[in-house]
């Protein structure tokens, strides 16, 4: 049903992931025994009300946070316990992030923003520049590569952020409420970009509480109280 997921090795695999927060005498169980696989080419949405633990799950999947227990594999590599340096390397090489707040650097051109992740790897500069220009052009920002974020509309800023997420050819892209800060028109624009990326075979995980956004996904995972209550292909 979905985009012919290759049932061999998943891009991302979580086994019995839990996450606890200790607050004073109390231990909060934010995530309880989460297991899931995400395969290459999938477009998955993770939905749930706020406080359900979906953001924590996203952070753990994106190697930004560590699970309390359980195992995690990314692109076939065991990512269960990583040093900070190793986690940074894996994030740089395999993961692209799209944030609700865009998180572009102010007073830095669109092009430089797209190139930001390449500061932390060894690919030749010129190659990356050409690629960044192409990504921005494909996203309709060819005329604006030297504009600063404050000279761009919200939708344009999010497109810059998408280009930035793509610059290192990630194995998996996490989008955290990517339309949350956009008006309807720009939101639709970003939605259609995500659909296009999916068609190109990218693996994308969208975290949202917006049902319209979730509806573009081919698979929906619903989280409630730190547990997966639904995981179905649409």
């Amino acid at each position, binding site marked *: 049903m979905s985009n012919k997921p290759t049932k061999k090795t998943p891009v991302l695999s979580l086994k019995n992931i839990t996450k606890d927060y200790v607050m004073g005498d109390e231990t909060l169980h934010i995530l309880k025994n989460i297991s899931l696989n995400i395969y290459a080419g999938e477009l998955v949405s993770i939905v749930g009300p706020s406080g359900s633990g979906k953001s924590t799950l996203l*952070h753990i999947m*994106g190697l*930004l*946070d560590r699970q309390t227990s359980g195992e995690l594999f990314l692109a076939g590599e065991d990512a269960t316990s990583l040093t*900070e*340096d190793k986690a*940074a*390397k894996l*994030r*740089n*090489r395999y993961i692209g*992030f799209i*944030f609700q707040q865009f*998180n572009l*650097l102010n*007073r*830095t051109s669109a092009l430089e923003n797209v190139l*930001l*992740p390449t*500061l*932390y*790897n060894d690919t030749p*500069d010129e190659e990356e520049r050409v690629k960044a220009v192409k990504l921005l052009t494909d996203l309709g920002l060819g005329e604006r590569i030297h504009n600063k974020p404050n000279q761009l509309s919200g939708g344009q800023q999010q497109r810059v952020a998408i280009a*930035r997420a793509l610059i*290192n050819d990630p194995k998996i892209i996490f989008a955290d409420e990517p339309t949350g800060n956009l008006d309807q028109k720009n939101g639709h624009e970003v939605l259609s970009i995500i659909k296009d990326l999916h068609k190109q075979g990218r693996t994308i995980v969208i975290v949202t509480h917006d049902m319209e956004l979730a509806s573009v996904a081919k698979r929906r995972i619903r989280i409630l109280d730190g547990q997966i209550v639904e995981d179905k292909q649409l």
Partner: protein
Amino acid sequence: MNYAVLTKSALISILRNKLRSFLTTLGVIIGVLSVILLTSIGNGLTVFVEEQFENLGSNLLIISPGEIVSEEGGFNPDAAALSLTTSKLSEKDVDNLKRAGYPLSAVAPVIEGSIDIRTEQGKRKGYSLATTPDYSVLRNTKAVSGRFFSDSDVTGNRKVAVIGNKIKEKLFAGVDPVGASLTINRVRFEVIGVAEKKSSGSFGGPDIDSTVYIPISTARSALSQDKVSYILVQAADKTSIERGKERIKEIMSKRLQEEDFSVTDQSEILKTIQTILSTLTVGLAGIAAISLVVGGIGIMNIMLVAVSERTREIGLRKALGATPNNILVQFLIEAVVLSTLGGIIGIILGILGATAITAFFPATPALNSILLAFGVSFTTGVIFGVFPARKAASLSPIEALRYE
């Protein structure tokens, strides 16, 4: 990791807040500026003193009475006053030294005294230096108008005087002093010459230009000054200074005990003064260095502000693959760029300032103090940048991304 890119981004973020960056570097600028200015003044003083010594005459050996005055060598008026009462040096020693010949080429005994000088225009406390004509050769003291006294003035106990430039200005204003008369302690003297101006006279020691030079025999007969303050001896050349010294000790020992005299040469005195001055210079630089430390704390302060202001940026960079070390280096480079920029500005201002004050005060900027100041400002950046940079590096990416 690309250091050129990191340095560039550091420059960009520094230029982003021009006023703040300037205020931050101000501490370092002032620190470096004062290090350079103060060491320049120290160096300038040293050079000045060396030049003054050159002026005093060359290959000079000084025999002073007793041991206590050995370091001052008779330049100090207190030592001179003391030597007047305790000195066992005498005319006989002078004769013995004169007979010695090579390596001693000239000998001049000196009796110093405090005197009251009076002319038609007024009176003034002064300083008398009674000696023989050889003194003018030894000390390079020339008469610019009139003449220095001669051997016959000495043998004839003539009441003649050569006055210093300041005496001429103060007590013979507008008149030609040569041929005029003045009284020294109520004894009338004829002015026969005016001594060449020796120095600005602003640094230590008795004022050479307020001196009245008189024949030594006259001082004895007319002013009843009889204790020899010190004896100046000139060695034939630079290489014979040591041998001259030995020879003097030999001759003097015939008549006097070892503790009754001491022999110093100019280079020793110069060395002592140089030691004092270089200690002074280091001390001044040390005081100035404190302001560099204060400057460093200013940098640390602003970098800490920058870290919390840019928490989101740090979180983003980490999410995109920056390791803690990448972040550390980025902030460290920023701190170092800030402090070295301050250092460079401070050096430029320091050199300009030192050049400007040479009009009033001897100041010579030294290359090594400039390099030192630059090195210290760089190090300040590193030391005071580490703490904020480590703080930035240790931020958790999700906390940082959530930060508003």
